[in-house]
C-alpha cells in the first residue's frame, strides 16, 4: 500500500471579550466561499445577543477579531 495523505480544514474564529479575555472557536469543515460580510453578520448577532461569555470573568462578548482557515496535512506512512 502507498502512503496515505489526508488534509483537514478548520476555521479558526478569534473572539475578544470586553474584559480582555480571548478565545478561539473552531469551525469544522469550513466552506471555501465564506465572505467577510457573513462574519460581520455573525459578529453582529453575537454582539446583539451576547451569545458567549468569557471564561475568566464571564466578560461580555466584544467582537470577532479574526477568522482564518487552517489546513492541516497528515501523511500516514505505509510501513
Amino acid at each position: 500500500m502507498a502512503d496515505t495523505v489526508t488534509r483537514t480544514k478548520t476555521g479558526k474564529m478569534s473572539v475578544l471579550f470586553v474584559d480582555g479575555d480571548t478565545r478561539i472557536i473552531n469551525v469544522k469543515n469550513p466552506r471555501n466561499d465564506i465572505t467577510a460580510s457573513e462574519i460581520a453578520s455573525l459578529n453582529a448577532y453575537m454582539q446583539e445577543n451576547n451569545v458567549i461569555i468569557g471564561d475568566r470573568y464571564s466578560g461580555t462578548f466584544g467582537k470577532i477579531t479574526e477568522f482564518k482557515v487552517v489546513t492541516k496535512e497528515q501523511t500516514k506512512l505505509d510501513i
Partner: protein
Amino acid sequence: MAKVNLQIKTTDVNDKNQTTTISYANPNASDQVLKTFAQKIVALSTDMYRETNKIETTNLDTESSKTTATITLSSTSITKAALKTALSSKQPHTVSFTYSGDGVVYAYAKSNDISNFTAPNVSLSEGTWTLNLFNGVASNPNCYVACEIVLFAPETANYKAAQATFTITD
C-alpha cells in the same frame, strides 16, 4: 453562574456524524438565541446541521453563596440630536452609575465608529463614576451614531456578574 456548553451535532459531506462543542455560552441567553447561533456557526461549514444540545453545569460549592450585583445608571438612553445639542457648548454629557459589587466595571462601546468615547475594555475606578460621552469631540460628526455602551462588571469571588446598557438612539 452556571456554565453552559453548546454541543452542536452535524453530518459532514461523507455522511459522518460530527460534534462541535462551544463552551461558555451565556447562561442568560434564550434557547432560541443559542440554537440560532449554532445554526449560524454550522452555516459557515459544508456540514449539515442536525441538532444542538445545551449542557448546563453548576458548581454548588462556589455559586450558591454569591450575591447578585447590580449596575444602576442615572439615565439609560439619549437621542443623537439631544447629545449633539448637549455637546454644542463643548460640555461633556455625563451619565452617573453605581455598582453594588466588589469588582471592577468596564465600559465598552458596541461600535467601532465611536472610539473617541472611550477605548473598549477600559476599566473604571471603584465607587460612583461619571461617564463622559464624546467629551471634546463634539465637532466630529462620526461620533453621532446610534450605538450601545455596555457597562460590565465580571463576577468576583463574592458577587455575580452585572451589566447595564446605555443607548444612543436615532
